């Protein structure tokens, strides 16, 4: 079950090697994204997640907010 985390936990996990993934459309990613994040829009997850992400490392996903 995915665990909900806050900003401090994001920083800690990224520092420990977690992969950061923005799931918004690429146009929004291009303008602003968290340092080191890769872009994997929600609709492309099924097709590209295995190719882009390492299944052996933690993954953190985010969008704009909880809405």
């Amino acid at each position, binding site marked *: 079950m995915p665990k909900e985390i806050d900003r401090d936990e994001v920083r800690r996990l990224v520092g420990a090697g977690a992969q950061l993934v923005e799931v918004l459309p690429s146009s929004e990613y291009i303008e602003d994204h968290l340092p080191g994040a890769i872009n994997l829009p*929600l609709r492309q997850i099924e097709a590209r997640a295995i190719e882009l992400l390492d299944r052996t490392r933690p993954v953190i*996903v985010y969008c704009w907010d*909880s809405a």
Partner: protein
Amino acid sequence: MSSRAAWRLESLGFGEVYDYVDGKLDWMAAGLATEGTNTGHQRAGEIARKDAPVCGLKDRLGDVSERVKASGWNAAVVVNDDRVVLGLLRSKELAGDPDQLVEKAMRPGPSTFRPFVPLHEMAHFMIEHKIENAPITTSDGRLVGLLLQEDVIQAMKKAKQ
């Protein structure tokens, strides 16, 4: 949206998946760095004065006024112990009865702005509403700094050169 993404990744065999539920808005509101094409654009949090005078609700207005003037300012932000913005004292309020408490003299609930707001948006708003200074806060209301209209205009002029 991120919740659905997290669940889908887990179903694809990713064993350790986290959902940063407050997302990019929370990150930017905290004034943390981002990457992307907007990176070069200055934002409110970058030029907000971090050394703006602050005071508490129970401070005596006369004491605050003297301290503010001595430091070359004409405004002070009223905050609680956690630096959450409760009010604002501009020139008019600072010139009030020196024996009253700040909580009686201040402008309660001033408009606050997030650190990631682009400067051109701040300039437009501040000029249109004749606002000389505005508190910049995190999403949970903590003071980042006080943004001065003159600083915004100067920064924009500099950027155009």
